[in-house]
């Protein structure tokens, strides 16, 4: 059994962040992009908790609470917005958001 060290946690968090970023860039569906964004936020949470544990400083864990709260607010506003857009346009594809050009 390997004792988990800080770098293990950071590896996971880095992987989560990259997967999330990749999802945001590659996927075309706004809902899935939004899910990927949550993944990126949680990657930061994992990193903060791990660093807080290994630094012996609880500030990082408190920060995680702030992030979770803010992310919840962000999700509720964001989903409402996406629903409003769907009612208007019947689409959740980013490619269709092109009514404003030069």
């Amino acid at each position: 059994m390997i004792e988990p060290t800080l770098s293990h946690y950071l590896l996971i968090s880095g992987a989560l962040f990259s997967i999330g970023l990749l999802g945001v860039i590659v996927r075309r569906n706004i809902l899935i992009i939004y899910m990927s964004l949550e993944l990126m936020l949680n990657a930061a949470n994992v990193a903060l908790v791990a660093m807080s544990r290994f630094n012996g400083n609880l500030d990082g864990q408190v920060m995680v609470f702030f992030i979770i709260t803010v992310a919840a607010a962000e999700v509720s506003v964001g989903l409402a917005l996406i629903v409003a857009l769907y009612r208007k346009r019947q689409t959740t594809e980013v490619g269709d958001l092109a009514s404003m050009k030069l």
Partner: protein
Amino acid sequence: MVDQLKFVQLEMMVLVLGLAVLIADLWMAPSKRRLIGHLSALSLGIIFLFSLRESYVDLVNESTDVFFNSRYKIDGLAIFFKRFFILAAIFVLIFAVDFADRIRSGFSEYYAFIIFALAGMMFAASANDFSMLFVSIELITITFYILVSYQRHRLQSLEAGVKYLILGAVSSAFMIYGIALIFGEAGSLKFEDLHAKQSELLGSNVFLFGMLFLFAGLAFKISAFPFQVWAPDVYQGAPTPTTAFLALGSKAAGFVLLIRLLVISLPDLTREWTTLFICISAVTILYGNLCALPQRNLKRLLAYSGIANAGYLLMGIVAQSEAGTAAILYYLAGYLFALITIFLIINLLTKEGEGEDISCLENLNNRSPFLAVAMTLAVVSLAGIPPLAGFFGKFLLIKSVAIEAFGNIGYFVLLAVAVFGVVASIFYYFGIVRTVFWNHKVDEITPVSVGLPIRFVLVSCVVGILYLGLLPNKPIKWVESAAAVENKSLLE
């Protein structure tokens, strides 16, 4: 403990006002909703007077160690920005009342959101810690998601909202990840601890990576290159009062955090990264000015000019000095008056559903000479022609960089780019002036009706532009003392 609340008295008042607006909405008859907006603007005016009181300004000398564990800072810089934000919010609220007919539903909530965003900006002005920075930035951003997409019946507004939402969320994800990396390396979230440890932190790649991520998040707020893609669409699609507040408040909030972080807390890092900041500043100026040239939509044009202005303001960060910070403050003050004037006039001249095409300005000098003069002054000030506010702002920024310039070729490149940008910008700004005075394809002369509150805002903005331009001695002293108080407390 309770008497320590005096440090946040202004923010508390603003928050209570926001809640009061929401509650008042329940009792007011729909026909009186206009009154709520004007009353809240008036209350903000009273809060502005509170910020001028001596007992408030004296808080600079007291330490917030006990109450906020030095996470919350009151100094000249914070007080200057708080006043700036309140003033901007007063103008935007009066603007929003005029705009209310086009929102169709939820007027009072619109006012309340403007006030909540203001509270976020005021907290950001005092943030001296990453948790404070993050929460205040998010309070601003999330409120703006709603404010941008407020006209739900307009597809453009929704589209702008979704674009801002996704790009804003990506930028905050980067910012948080950056904060996590910085926290891991520095072991603290406080800016003061970073300042104390900066020389050893500079050797750590993790820390530098974290700073880069954090800077990406803040650069998004100020719409600096390469994080500027959202600005044109969002500015164009958003309701006009939101656009004005976004261009002023959100950008200034980004700058106060950049000043606090890069100039005050981590000067060594900024010195290390001078080349990076010079590049970003120069490319932002070029990109904004060149893309603005072919624009016909006024809000889009102002978005690009806003990008260019972010580049100019970054010069103050590059300068890394008290003079640079003072120049940023001066420039922002001039920018406030000019932008509010322009957006108000655009709004008066366009009806709902029409695009804000530049042709709406045609014949303005016959339709309303007052508006024509105000528009010209504002645009000329933005272009940086003496002797108006914008000229002195640009002059101070360029001067602050020029003083540092000896010994580094990069500074000269930046200066050359800045001057080139000013020249290029004259083309599109004077395109606006030409449309106002000389470009008459239509001969309709319908007078434009301007309500009393709007007239008041326009007159005070014009007075502001002229005052900052013609009598710069006193305001320069104000911004210098606002920028200087900070450095004094740092030396202790």
